């Protein structure tokens, strides 16, 4: 009999939760995890603490490599999937290798989003999602005195306040569209400004960036519509996240903002599943899709995906009560716990 070959793209919490379940359910199957990040699975939410030197790099690591060896899970790190042929069960890796699967889980997560209007100077923005991003910034931190944070999504709040604590001059340009997946209601906005200001962040409201100049790629000047010129050494893009699905666009997968999956996390291809930050999950209760964001959510969905790939029929479950609707998408917020204080 041919064994299953489960391939999981991603090495975040979704992917790892799914791999655990798959190994429990199917001790003999081949399991391969592929991620374009080089690092072992790490606590993303501790990156701000790492940045400030409060957490060591090794404390970020969730599991050692032996964990995978013992479970005979093959980890392909630093390897990017650049194309898929889902009707032939084939993935194409950037280093020019084809990888086949019998069942596939897309646990791609999200990536920081930079709105179109900033297109011409987008390379001057930095993003903060991965350990590599954090390492780079940490190595530069000594020479950074002023920081401009553009957008203001959920991640940015902690990022901004943490940096302000270090005595650096942190300026936050709130952009309403950035608050995705939450709607920046008047109440939330006021609450944000109040708490940020109290923690030493300068909030610049009702203005927007129109350009970023730089003489030496170390020092920047952010120009705003209102005519402000903000000198700084770091411009962070925090306009919210988008599912990381660009390479899937012509794959035949149904994709909206994220990969559309049914309540069993199955895509429109029978052998392909998606879960975590990259998926838009159908909720039969509300007859609509919702986007999952956040660690606990991702972990739960990862387990559900694992069960279903191994032949189960679990439901992703109700979108939590405090789901909000943003741009026609149901977003859940209840998960956003302060992990960082651990």
């Amino acid at each position, binding site marked *: 009999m041919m*064994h299953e070959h489960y391939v999981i793209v991603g090495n975040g919490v979704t992917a790892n939760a799914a791999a655990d379940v798959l190994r429990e359910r199917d001790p*003999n199957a*081949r399991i*391969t995890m592929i991620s374009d990040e080089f690092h072992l699975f790490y606590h993303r939410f501790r990156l701000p603490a790492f940045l400030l030197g409060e957490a060591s790099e090794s404390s970020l690591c969730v599991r050692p490599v032996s964990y995978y060896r013992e479970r*005979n899970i*093959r980890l392909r790190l630093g390897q990017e999937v650049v194309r898929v042929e889902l009707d032939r069960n084939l993935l194409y890796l950037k280093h020019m290798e084809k990888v086949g699967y019998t069942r596939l889980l897309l646990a791609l997560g999200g990536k920081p989003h930079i709105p179109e209007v900033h297109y011409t100077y987008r390379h001057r923005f930095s993003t903060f999602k991965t350990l590599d991003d954090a390492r780079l910034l940490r190595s530069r931190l000594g020479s950074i005195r002023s920081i401009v944070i553009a957008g203001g999504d959920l991640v940015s709040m902690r990022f901004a306040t943490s940096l302000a604590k270090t005595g650096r001059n942190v300026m936050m340009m709130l952009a309403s569209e950035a608050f995705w997946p939450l709607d920046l209601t008047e109440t939330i906005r006021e609450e944000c400004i109040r708490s940020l200001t109290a923690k030493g962040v300068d909030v610049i409201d009702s203005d927007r960036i129109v350009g970023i100049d730089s003489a030496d790629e170390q020092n920047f000047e952010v120009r705003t519509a209102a005519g402000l010129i903000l000198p700084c050494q770091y411009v962070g893009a925090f306009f919210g996240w988008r599912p990381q699905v660009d390479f899937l666009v012509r794959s035949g997968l149904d994709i909206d903002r994220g990969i559309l999956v049914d309540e069993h996390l199955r895509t429109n291809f029978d052998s392909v599943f998606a879960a975590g930050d990259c998926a838009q999950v159908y909720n039969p209760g509300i007859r609509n899709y919702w986007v999952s964001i956040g660690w606990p959510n991702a972990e739960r969905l990862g387990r559900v995906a694992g069960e279903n790939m191994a032949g189960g029929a679990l439901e992703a479950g109700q979108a939590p009560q405090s789901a909000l609707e943003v741009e026609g998408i149901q977003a859940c917020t209840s998960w956003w716990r302060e992990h960082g204080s651990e």
Partner: protein
Amino acid sequence: MNQANTPDQPKPIIHAGVSRFLEDVQKSGILNYRSESLPTWCPGCGYYGITHGITQALSELEIPSHELVFVSGIGCAGRYPFFMKGYGFHTIHGRTLPIASGIKMANPRLRVIAVGGDGDGFAIGGGHLPHAIRRNIDLTYVVFDNGIYGLTKGQASPTTPQGQITATTPYGNPEQPLNPTMLGLSYGTSFLATGYAGLPHELLPIFKAAFSHRGFSLVIITTPCVTFDSVNITYDRFRHLWHPIPASHPVSDIRSAMMLAMSGEHYYGVMFSEDRPTWDDRWETIQRNARKK
């Protein structure tokens, strides 16, 4: 555990081309004489052609593989027994014939086929050839004569032409080459045939005759070493040089055979064959006489 996928043990890479080739060959029946190991010779090596000829002859003669013993010395040619189905003895350099003779003497029912390179047979083992011939021991000795030392990467051999540049003769080979055919004839072999690996289909009758001969049969096959000889025995140079031995040649006439051997032309076929008592025949007589006394 799925070991094949762990990086410590990379999966073997199976060359699709080879397996398809094998399928075709399977049908011809000659694979019955091939072992599981694929030959490790360089692609294009003449030894593949020789192997083809030998296996074809064996399968036509329907010799059971358990009666076969392939004995070899050291060299690329020496690898031969590993690729054949039958008993095999990969001995040491140059000692092919003494060991093959011992096998045959000890168990005359076995069909012994000794093979080796020109270095193995005419240099280090050269001293053994006349004596195996004198004994007329009933085995076939196939010399894979590529005019070079293959396994040790291209040094001169006893059949390398004078003047040829090799790894050990960077200023040209100072020695004159042997004429192996003349050598075999003048030592008095009871059978001698020659062939060319570039004409594998012509090898069938040659090997059939050699394997059917009672007594010592010497088969000298000229064969290209594509890796270490680009000037002497090459497919290009030899393409049109080979002729069949003329039908008019009286095969039991040693003088006529010597004329062919000295002609400087390249002939393939049975050059000499004579029915003579073998080692076993002679010992049978000796033993009979001894009992009488």
